[in-house]
């Protein structure tokens, strides 16, 4: 996608460059050049639209050095803002998941396992249990890997329809079926009487609006809200249906896989990203076989400023006919959620298998190119799968830890710090980075440490009412 933008009129560049520093996904080399180019241009012209064809050449030479510094400044200047832009949705998702786990007991009851984890953990010996959980985790991971590769292959051979169909089905499933179950359980918990007709109406409205928002156009906030809800639903499903040790093992292995898939030159996600870039397409929901949605959300930058600059975007759209189709897809506002996010989402929505892939895809996906609305607005993108796994970690911590709220808090802070560090690395390296490993590692370390070490200490302290 980025490549395509290069051919587009200059002002597009202006938009794009801003994006890069913020982007989680990363910038490719061409992007950085363009970025530099754009930055200088941006600095020069108040009106991006004015920068056009005539200028670029001159600008490039003059501003190359300047650009680098400016880039860095912009990076850091927007860095904190974007970190917060990511903190808020991640926090919201985690809060929803923890609140649900604490109040609705459905999600903590063991009602069986998914077919992807055929081995039970209710075994007699510890060794048997360990073996079973390792096997379970291995099966899940291989499913994920297969899905990712399938997605990459589909993308490479341009089977967009298949991917689209897949995404739509996943989002349908997630929006209607899972939320129906969720709503039912919440009603049961609070003993609220409800008739089927009302429920049908509510779910129908919720689902349809969700589909429209995610796959098509919609207000930014609403899209973000829907994405958060979907991630939370998916995380809840995971928490319910994955047995203990398997869940922790899967979290650990997924982070390793994420690291490998995004950074290795032959990794599927990396190939996905590169292919998308070669074709100058936005990384797109289609790619992600994420069953759910869409990607749309990612596209637009999230801030209100972006909206103000909507007019600018309009011009861009006109100028970039080639991008039209992508624009449509990309319609989704960024809202700061990255494509990965969407992908993840997609994945999550569908059967479990989809998730890993989408996640991976999502993470790998570079920012969306086009939309660029406002240079200010460049958001950072975070894969939807990341949301889901973070929430799974925190949800599991609140559900099964003996330290309860202490452990939950500790994991929450650990994940946020991991996210900060990841974004910092993104700002430094400016290429697509996996968001999972650092945060999940911190989260896991803190979970186990807090649960086993800190909890007894705090219990004793609270008992004697001693404060440290």
């Amino acid at each position: 996608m980025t490549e395509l933008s290069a051919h587009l009129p200059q002002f597009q560049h202006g938009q794009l460059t801003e994006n890069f520093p913020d982007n989680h996904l990363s910038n490719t080399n061409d992007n950085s050049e363009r970025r530099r180019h754009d930055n200088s241009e941006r600095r020069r012209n108040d009106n991006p639209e004015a920068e056009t064809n005539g200028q670029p050449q001159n600008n490039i030479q003059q501003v190359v050095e300047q650009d680098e510094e400016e880039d860095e400044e912009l990076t850091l200047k927007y860095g904190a803002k974007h970190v917060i832009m990511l903190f808020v949705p991640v926090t919201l998702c985690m809060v929803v998941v923890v609140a649900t786990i604490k109040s609705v007991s459905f999600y903590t009851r063991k009602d069986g396992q998914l077919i992807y984890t055929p081995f039970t953990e209710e075994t007699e010996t510890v060794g048997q249990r360990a073996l079973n959980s390792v096997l379970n985790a291995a099966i899940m991971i291989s499913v994920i890997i297969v899905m990712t590769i399938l997605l990459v292959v589909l993308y490479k051979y341009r089977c967009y329809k298949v991917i689209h169909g897949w995404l739509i089905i996943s989002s349908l499933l997630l929006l209607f079926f899972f939320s129906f179950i969720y709503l039912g359980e919440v009603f049961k918990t609070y003993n609220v009487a409800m008739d089927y007709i009302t429920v049908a109406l509510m779910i129908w409205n919720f689902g349809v609006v969700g589909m429209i928002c995610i796959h098509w156009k919609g207000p930014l906030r609403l899209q973000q809200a829907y994405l958060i809800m979907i991630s939370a639903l998916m995380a809840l499903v995971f928490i319910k249906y994955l047995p203990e040790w398997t869940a922790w093992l899967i979290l650990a292995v997924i982070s390793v896989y994420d690291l490998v898939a995004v950074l290795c030159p032959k990794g599927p996600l990396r190939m996905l990203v590169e292919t998308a870039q070669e074709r100058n397409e936005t990384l797109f929901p289609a790619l992600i076989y994420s069953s759910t949605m869409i990607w749309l959300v990612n596209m637009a930058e999230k801030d209100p400023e972006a909206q103000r600059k909507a007019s600018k975007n309009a011009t861009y759209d006109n100028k970039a006919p080639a991008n039209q189709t992508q624009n449509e897809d990309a319609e989704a506002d960024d809202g700061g959620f990255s494509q990965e996010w969407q992908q993840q989402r997609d994945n999550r929505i569908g059967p479990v298998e989809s998730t890993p892939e989408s996640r991976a895809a999502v993470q790998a996906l570079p920012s969306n190119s086009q939309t660029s609305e406002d240079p200010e607005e460049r958001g950072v993108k975070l894969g939807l799968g990341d949301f889901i796994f973070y929430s799974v970690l925190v949800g599991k911590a609140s559900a099964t830890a003996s330290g309860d709220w202490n452990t939950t808090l500790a994991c929450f802070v650990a994940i946020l710090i991991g996210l900060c560090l990841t974004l910092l690395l993104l700002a430094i390296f400016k290429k697509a980075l996996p968001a999972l490993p650092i945060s999940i590692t911190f989260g896991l370390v803190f979970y186990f440490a807090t649960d086993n070490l800190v909890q007894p200490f705090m219990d004793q302290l609270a008992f004697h009412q001693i404060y440290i």
Partner: protein
Amino acid sequence: PALGLFLFTIARDPLRIIILIAGAFFWLVSLLLSSLIWFISVKASDPQDERLQKGLLIFGVMFSVLLQEAFRFLYYKLLRKAIEGLVALSEDGCSPISIQQMAYVAGVGFGLMSGAFSMVNLLADALGPGTVGIHGDSQLYFLTSAFMTMVLIFLHTFWGILFFHGCEHRRWWEIVAVIVMHLAVSGSTFFNPLYVGSLVPSYLLMATAAAWAYLLSGGSAQNLRRFLLCKS
């Protein structure tokens, strides 16, 4: 009150939020390490001996206090480096956030985390059924816990300011004073079912620390008077 502090002063600026969370993180890590030490010491000792356990607990607490201060120092170092980076990268050559603000935010971060850890399980239990103090323990348990937590959060905030100020101007005695105060407050909680022994000194110390921090931050009695009388 701590939440109010957070909302009014920190939530506006994203950089401050990051510093806050990082501060909380540092406190958490110090807690982790200190509980690790305590845990090891407990496992290595006789679980039946009550006095020994109490003694170990005291030892653990003191050690934890020292570790917390050590981590505050480390955090200070990190923030210094960060400030230099921010200054270099900012457009107009001056940092978007001053070291005092950072000290304040770091203090609040530490305080919030320690307060949360102290209170939250208590609060969760308080939602459930039961009566306080039925077994002969003090009936004021919740109330005193709440007050103690609040005083501790404020204290952490002030200590943050004092500590950073001491580090900035290389006044070692300030740093030592903070450490001593922290130890004193923790020590006073050992008296705990006798609440007079712990709450009162803690509040006194807090008032002292507050005044000191205020003076250090450039306030003065005049400012205070003007503020209170709403003069412009």
